[in-house]
Structure formats: C-alpha cells, structure tokens
C-alpha cells in the first residue's frame, strides 16, 4: 500500500476544466433538433380523489397541439422495489401535483396554454396527510390493491392497510432487556420531509425513432436501472432492453432524487407514441419540490435502557415513516433503517419496527443518507439525555457502547473493520471536548454537541458494477462505466484507480459518461457504493488489461510474465533491466515480431464486481439470518454552536467531522464531501422547513420560502479528518462516504443547544424561531 502514486493523492478533478469553462453540457443544454416537442403537464389539485372524468377535447382542438396523453394511454405499472405507480394517474389521484395528463406541442407556450384547458372532474376521498392517521385501523386505503402488487421478496406489504412495508428486527427478550436496566428513557422524535434541491431540476428527452428504437436522455443517477424500468413498464408495447437506450449526460446534483425512475418515464412513454420527434419534459423548480421524490418523514418512538455505568442493555425503536403516495423506492429506506436503527452501538437486546406508510403527499424515495439522518436525530439526542441523567459524559457513554469490529449487528452479522473509536478520539481531541467556551457577547451562549455517524449501502444483494478500459494510440485510457459523477468526483476516482494499476497518469485518462449501449452495467449511483463497487470493477478491468499486456509481451518478447511490471507507462522486466517498452507503442498496434508479423492488438480490459456474500433472505419476523448490508462506514462529528438567546439565531463556529473512508482515494474529494455534506445536513436542521396546507398542497415550492444556505451561512471553520481502517474488499481499502457526512448535523445541533441553553428540542427543523420561543417559554417557567 505504500508508494502509491495516484491513489491517496489530492488530484485535481478530471472534469474541472470542462465545468469551469462552460463546456459541460447537461441534459437541457444538448440540442435535439428542430423537431423537438414540448410537454406541458396537467396536475391534480386534489390530495386524494377518484378521477371521474378528464375532458381533453378543448386542449386537443387547440391550434398547434399535437397530442394529449392521459393515464389510459399507458396503463402500465412501474417501480423499483415494488410496482405501485402508474405513468399518469389512472382511476385516482393520490397527491396534489400528481400528473394526470400531458399536452404536447412544438411551441412551449401553446402546450402550456392548452394544458390549462384540460378539465378534470374529481370525486374527493378522505386524504391522509399524516402517517399516524394512515396507520389507524379504519383509515381510507390509499392503495386498495396493495396485496396484488409485485415486489421484491424481502418487502412485507400488509394488504388492506396503508402499510407498504414492515421491517421487524428482533433479538432477545425486550422485557428482560429493560428489566436489566437501571435507567430507561422513552420519548418520541419527529422529523419532517425534506427536498433534495439539486440546482439542476429533473429533465428528460425521449426519442423513439422511425424504426421504433427508443432513446432517452435524462438527468439521472441510474441509467441502467432506468432502462430496466422502462423496459418493464413498456413491455406491453413490445419494448425490451435491446430496443431502449439511455444516455446520461452530466447531472447538476442528484442527492438521491435522480435515482430510480420518476418523471423520466413520461418522456420515454410519450416518445413511443410520437415517433421521429424528441419529446422534452423538464421540471420547473416548483415541480421539483412537489413531484419528484422527497425525503421520508418519520415519527420515531424510542426507548433505551442502560445500566448505571452507561452500558446499554436494550433498545426498542419504532419508526413510522411517511412515504407518500408511492413507496416503490421509499420502502427500501424504511427497510434499511429497520435493520440499522440501533445506530453504531452495542445493544444486546433489540426490538425494531420500521413501518412504511402511504400518505396522500408526494412520493418519497432515496435522499442522501437514506433514512439514517432521520433516525440518528432521535437516537443521538436520546443518548445525550441518558448520559445527562446518569451524570456521564456524552462522549464517554458513546465510547463505552460504540460498536467494534466483530460485534454482532442487529441482524446477526459481525461488524466490519472500522475506525469508529479512532474517529471518536480524533473528534474529541480536535473540538476540545470538555472545555467550556463562553461568549464575550452577553446575548449569546456557546455549546458543543457530539454525534456518531454510521450507514451501510441499502441495495439488493446482486447490485453489481462492470467496467471496460480501452487504450488509444497515445497511450491514453478511456474508462467505460455507468456510474454517475453527480459532483462527488466519481470520474476522477475511477481514473486514479486505473492510473495506479496501469501507471498511466490521471491526466491521460478519461472516464466516460454512461450510455447503456456502450458503457457496461452499473446498478445505480446511490448508496455511497460506487467508489467501492465500481472502483473494484475498474480495478479488475485495469488488472485484466495489465494481464493482457504481460501476456502479449511474454509471447512477443519471450520474457516471463511473472517478471514483468509497469512503471511510468512502460512495461519493464525485473530480470532484464534494460528492457522497456512504452505502452503507446503496442496497445493498439500490437508488437511486431522479427519476421514482420504482429502479436497482440488492441488491449481491452474488462472487470466486474458483484458481492457474492450478501443475501436479503432472513426471518421476516426477526430479520435474523441474512446478510443484507455489505458493510458500514462510520465516523464521528462535533460542533461548537453559538446561539443568540433572544433571537434564537444560531451560528456554527466550528465543525469537526471524522469519517473512516477505508482508504481515501482522493483526500481532497473526501474533504469536499465533508464540507458539502455538513452544510446540507445543517441546512435540514436549521433552515429547511417544508409546509403543507390542510389540503395537502405544498405551500413553499421555491427558494424564496424553502431556504437552502448561501455563502453567508457557512460555519466559520470546518475541520475534516480522514480515518483509514481499510475495507478488506474495497479497492485499495476504500469504502464510500458521500452520504455519511450529512448524518450527524441535526443531532449535533440539538445536543449543542442543550449544552448552550439547556433546552431540548425533539422535532425538526430547529429554526431560530423555534429556539427563541422555546427558550422564552423555558425562562418563564
């Protein structure tokens, strides 16, 4: 591992110049020709209603309208883990903003004007805007046919209820676990929905050419999964995977919102009926808020038992998730947390219920953190409170119970190697934990807050990656993969891995954006898993190319393979020091032998990676028996928070975050994830405040009233710490970190506020208003 030349170095991003010069073209920047059609949507104004009638006649007659589509044109269900949604609403609408129809024209304004002429007649049904309402015994059924839905075998939808999935994890006797405790704390924590807010909204263009071949360009994290879902949904129209191509141009942020399929299927489906014309569907910012996925809301009832010395004895964690009108992706968030809601702690006795409820609000799905930010808010707050009661230091109680390699996880599998304790120690030291800080300003108080971090990728057990590497005549490399760089630096990291194996400098390597025709398979760029999974595939492909190189040298130059090595883009031989052959001389053209004939030819490496040790099969009543998560990435973080006692205004003076990356392939990019992720996390707890009215309409679908931070809202200082306890099956020891960095933000704020002002807030967001008014009420008492 020593003497690495490219891996572990803070190399400048390979797509930096492109992005800074304006050369990067996102989906809507591409030119689709003068045949381009625009689709304007008709949306539901009701949260829950039967559609009695859709009158499209006026819209159809409007001059310049080419077509009007409704649900009956595409009566096909789709969904990633469960098929519970239609392309356009069919017999009913399930949230305000759900697409009911689309009007297509060559002129954007004509499409939009005509869309206003579509008349929809509804018969209102009771709307459930709260997961606890949806859970009630006689609640209206949002998906009456739930029992018939196709789903992955490790989901447990409850027919004739609004429960889309119920993950139960049980270990030991929970009553006994609490009987052994000296102290028990029970409380409820509530976290609302959040919006991803990528600066680029969702965009998709579908073109079904005159021969019937469908191409979709989409701002997407998951081109191959999208192709798969399109193929499944459009199979009744005669499409299979061979007939569909998905091209994924660079994306302007994803954060999970561009995973799976949401609006892209509209472009795909409509294109099939408008052969020869590209059909564009671009989401406005408003629609980006209310009709893509949101982060699930959760109400978590948590009870933890501990001994006097702080040792945890038992956890009872019941989480009720608001997954919205469709749970095809969101139910996996619920599943993931059902398996991990212990946090990175040892609990001998465990009872977890993670319940996924349908509601009449926008569908929820993957969001950076995948449920972990949501439950860690409550868990890390709760642990601080237990520490306070037991008169123990909050960091000390965490150290006592923090999980170690080999400890048995909630579902029965040993914990992977991890630097959790190293991270805790590093953060404790850097934040000067235990040292009180006072403000010079009499209006202000300063407090410190601590939190641990953990998350595992939540994927099906056969999520795989594949890679090709190919050379060019100048010795440069193209890496063909279908992972997406959504800003995290994936393209660069893959190049660094290939560079290390093949000794070609990163500056001579391109990593290509996905095209399902040309780039091999990647399940999705989610779960913070592509550095690990696709990194392994690229490493394998590079090794495969290297093997071919040594093989042809052995044949053509009569040198033993085992003695060959690569250095500075040349093949060298340990037993023949004066031998060196530059790669560029033969990686396309082959090697000429004495008799003038050539050996070899184009070097083309191939690699795949699929974890063969994971399984989703387990006891549905206890979750014991499977190996659902490949590994956990862990860390720790702390902040110094300054708060104005009168106004409630909060300012983070310093944030320290340590994350165990296994091996930071590019430390600068890992730091980028820490800085960016922390701010996104702080934003969810301090500023973002999603509001619905009592009819299920989103009141603040814009940046005017859903505030994401500006350059003026950043912490004074962020100190990133990279811990490296290698992941044995990771490329050079690497593990993913992209989502993890935002997870500790909310509990750190809650804990720091307790320290600064003595107030405990158990609901998010924790806005300055909430702090000011809570503190005021407390003072009055």
């Amino acid at each position, binding site marked *: 591992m020593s003497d690495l030349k490219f891996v572990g170095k803070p190399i400048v991003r390979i797509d930096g110049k492109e992005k800074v010069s304006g050369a990067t073209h996102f989906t809507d920047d591409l030119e689709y020709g003068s045949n381009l059609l625009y689709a304007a949507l008709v949306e539901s104004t009701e949260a829950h209603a039967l559609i009695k009638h859709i009158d499209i006649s006026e819209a159809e007659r409007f001059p310049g309208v080419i077509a009007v589509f409704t649900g009956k044109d595409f009566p096909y269900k789709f969904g990633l883990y469960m098929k519970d949604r239609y392309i356009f609403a069919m017999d009913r609408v399930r949230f305000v903003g759900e697409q009911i129809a689309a009007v297509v024209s060559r002129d954007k304004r004509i499409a939009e004007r005509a869309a206003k002429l579509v008349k929809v007649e509804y018969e209102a049904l009771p709307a459930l805007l709260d997961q606890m309402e949806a859970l009630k015994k006689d609640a209206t059924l949002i998906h009456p046919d739930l029992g018939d839905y196709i789903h992955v075998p490790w989901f447990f939808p409850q027919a004739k209820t609004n429960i889309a999935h119920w993950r139960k994890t049980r270990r030991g006797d929970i009553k006994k676990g609490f009987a052994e405790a000296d102290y028990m704390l029970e409380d409820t924590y509530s976290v609302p929905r959040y919006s991803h807010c990528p600066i680029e909204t969702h965009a998709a263009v579908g073109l079904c050419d005159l021969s019937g071949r469908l191409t979709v360009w989409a701002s997407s994290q998951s081109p191959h999964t999208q192709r798969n879902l399109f193929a499944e949904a459009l199979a009744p129209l005669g499409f299979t995977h061979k007939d569909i191509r998905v091209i994924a141009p660079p994306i302007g942020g994803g954060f999970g919102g561009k995973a799976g399929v949401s609006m892209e299927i509209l472009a795909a489906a409509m294109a099939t009926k408008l052969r020869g014309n590209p059909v564009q569907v671009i989401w406005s910012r408003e629609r980006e808020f209310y009709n893509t996925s949101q982060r699930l809301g959760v109400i978590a009832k948590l009870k933890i038992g501990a001994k006097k010395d702080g040792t945890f004895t038992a956890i009872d964690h019941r989480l009720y998730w608001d997954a919205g009108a469709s749970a095809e992706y969101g139910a996996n968030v619920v599943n993931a947390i059902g398996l991990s809601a212990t946090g990175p702690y040892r609990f001998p006795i465990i009872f977890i219920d993670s319940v996924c409820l349908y509601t009449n609000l926008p569908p929820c799905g993957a969001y950076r953190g995948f449920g972990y930010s949501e439950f860690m808010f409550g868990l890390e707050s709760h642990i601080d409170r237990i520490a306070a009661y037991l008169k123990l230091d909050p960091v000390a109680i965490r150290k006592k119970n923090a999980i170690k390699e080999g400890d048995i996880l909630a579902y029965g599998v040993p914990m992977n190697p991890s630097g959790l304790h190293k991270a805790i120690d590093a953060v404790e030291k850097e934040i000067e934990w235990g040292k009180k800080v006072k403000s010079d300003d009499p209006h202000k108080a300063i407090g410190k807050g601590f939190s641990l971090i953990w998350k595992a990728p939540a994927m099906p057990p056969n999520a795989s990656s594949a890679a090709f590497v190919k050379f060019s005549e100048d010795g440069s490399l193209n890496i063909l993969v279908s992972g997406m760089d959504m800003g995290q630096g994936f393209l660069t990291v893959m190049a660094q891995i290939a560079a290390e194996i093949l000794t070609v400098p990163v500056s001579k390597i391109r990593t290509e954006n996905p095209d399902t025709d040309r780039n091999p398979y990647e399940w999705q760029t989610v779960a913070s898993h592509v550095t690990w999974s696709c990194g392994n595939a690229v490493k394998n492909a590079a090794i495969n190319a290297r093997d071919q190189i040594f093989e042809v040298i052995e044949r053509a130059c009569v040198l033993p393979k085992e003695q060959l090595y690569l250095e500075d883009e040349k093949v060298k031989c340990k037993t023949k020091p004066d031998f060196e052959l530059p790669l560029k001389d033969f990686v396309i053209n082959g090697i000429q032998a004495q008799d003038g004939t050539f050996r070899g030819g184009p070097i083309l490496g191939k690699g795949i990676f699929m974890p063969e040790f994971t399984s989703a099969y387990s006891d549905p009543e206890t979750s014991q028996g499977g190996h659902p998560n490949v590994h956990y990435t862990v860390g720790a973080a702390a902040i110094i928070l300054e708060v104005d006692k*009168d106004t409630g205004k909060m300012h983070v003076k310093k944030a320290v975050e340590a994350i165990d990356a296994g091996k930071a392939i590019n430390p600068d990019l890992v730091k980028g994830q820490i800085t960016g992720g922390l701010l996104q996390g702080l934003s969810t707890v301090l*500023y973002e405040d999603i509001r619905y009215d009592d009819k299920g309409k989103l009141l*603040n679908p814009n940046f005017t009233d859903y505030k994401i931070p*500006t350059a003026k*809202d950043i912490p004074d200082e962020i100190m990133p710490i990279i811990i490296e306890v290698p992941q044995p099956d990771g490329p050079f020891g690497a593990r993913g970190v992209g989502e993890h960095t935002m997870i500790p933000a909310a509990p750190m704020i809650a804990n720091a506020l307790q320290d600064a002002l003595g107030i405990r807030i158990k609901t998010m967001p924790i806005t*300055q*208003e909430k702090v*000011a*008014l809570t503190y005021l009420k407390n003072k009055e008492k």
Partner: protein
Amino acid sequence: MSILHDFEYYNPRNIEEVLQLRAEYRDKTRILAGGTDLVVQMKDNIVAPDVVIDIKGIEAFHEITFDENILFIGACVTFSELIESEIIQRYFPLIKEMSLTVASMGIRNRATMVGNICSAVPSADSAPILLVYDADVIVRSASEDRILPITEWFACPKKTTLKSDEIVTGIAIHFPERRHAGCYERLGRYSGEDLAQAGICILAFDDNQYHVACCAVGPIPKRLYHIEEFLNGKVIDQNVIQEAKKIMLNNIFPISDVRASKEYREHMMGIMLQRGLKKAVSRLHGGENA
C-alpha cells in the same frame, strides 16, 4: 416557464411618451424598470398587461442628486447604485445599510428603490427608511404633477395610491437639519437573502426626538407614532425601552405564515426595537458609523 400572454413593449426616450402611453392605456399598462418583480408576476400570470413601458431609456430617471439639501433618487436608480453612491454614503448612510439587506448582488444590480415601493409588499425594505425620512414620492401624469408624502403612498398590501395614468419619476428627501443617526433592523430566516419577516427603522435626532417605522408587521409599512410620542424628549434606558416595547405591541399587527409566526415576529420586533434604539443612539454619539 414562459410568459403566456402577448403584449406590446415600448421603450420611450422621453417622459412625455411615457405619460402619453399611461394616459392612453392606463391600467392595461405596467411600468418596467428593473423587472425583478414584474417579470416574475408575468411568468406566474398574476399580471398580464397589454402594454409594458420600459422606462430605462429616460436619462433623468437614473440620477441621484443632492441639491440644496434635497436628495433626489430617480425612478430607475438601482440598489447597487445607491450602495455605490458617494452622496448616499455621505449624507444618507441608512439608505446604504438598507440596500445591502435587499436580496443579493444580481438582483440589486437591476431592482430599483422606486420599484420596491411601487410593489407595495408589506415587507418592502425601502419603506421604513423612506418613512423615517418623511420622503416624498414624485408623481406625474399627462395632466398633473403631484408630490405625495410617503405616509400617503401605501394603501393596502400590494396597492398604492398611484393612479393608473400616473408614473413615479423619483423620490425626494429633505436632509434633516438636526444632527441624526439611524439604523435598520430586519428579521430574516438566515444570513443569506430573505424577504423581511419584520423590519424596524429608527432615526434618532440629537434633541432626543425619534422617528420609528416598520415593515412586514401589518398590511402596510408605517410610522409608529405612538412609540415616537412616548420616546420624544427621553433618554433611552432599559425602562424606556420596556415601555416602548409594550406600546409597539399594541400598534403592530403581524400575521403567521410560512415564513414566521405572529408570536415570533412580535418577539423579534421587541428585540429589534431594543437593539435598534441602542444602536441608533450609539451612532448618534459617534459610536459606530452613522
């Protein structure tokens, strides 16, 4: 999103043309200066004028002048120009302070102070400053010229007393004779750009007289005369502030909405009154940059 309705666009080079168009088309017209309000409203289909009159071609509208102790700010003067103006910096620093709280650079480079008061949103940042200065709104039509005290300008949310054949050509402020200093305190949800959820402007004079005005805590921005009556003649101390807070709560009418609750706005107005009075007085006595 596109602007769905069709309209005619005029870009006149002199005021007379503007006034003629207004006289002819009246409430079928809208005046376009910075466009940061109007263009959004047209996109949202909140307004759909038949005629848009771009007044940026009128040179006089871009002027900031200070003659014989009267400040004139033309209808097309942007917030950026106010921030950069030496006249404003020297004689009316409160206007610079307020301008820096408006949105961000890209908006301030286009948005105008006159446009801000014409929008007449309850949270208009310009309003409290103009109110404490007793500014005048200069109004012209093809038939009449008027000077309207700012206190008579705001009618109700998003409506002014401007008639449909009139335009605002600028704002005039008499530079106060007595030595004075002020400050503008406003409530936003974070340090980045935000519409004010509460705003208070205080102008303190060296003979212990005070002007106080507010925005975003009632249907229109206004002077808080009851507080002024109470404060006038007094030296600011804790007791005076506490009493002033009570009076203020009887005279502001904030609502609860997605941005802030009534309770928090009231609480914050109290804090901002307190901190604002202290700051204004401190500046008056040379503490901070007046």
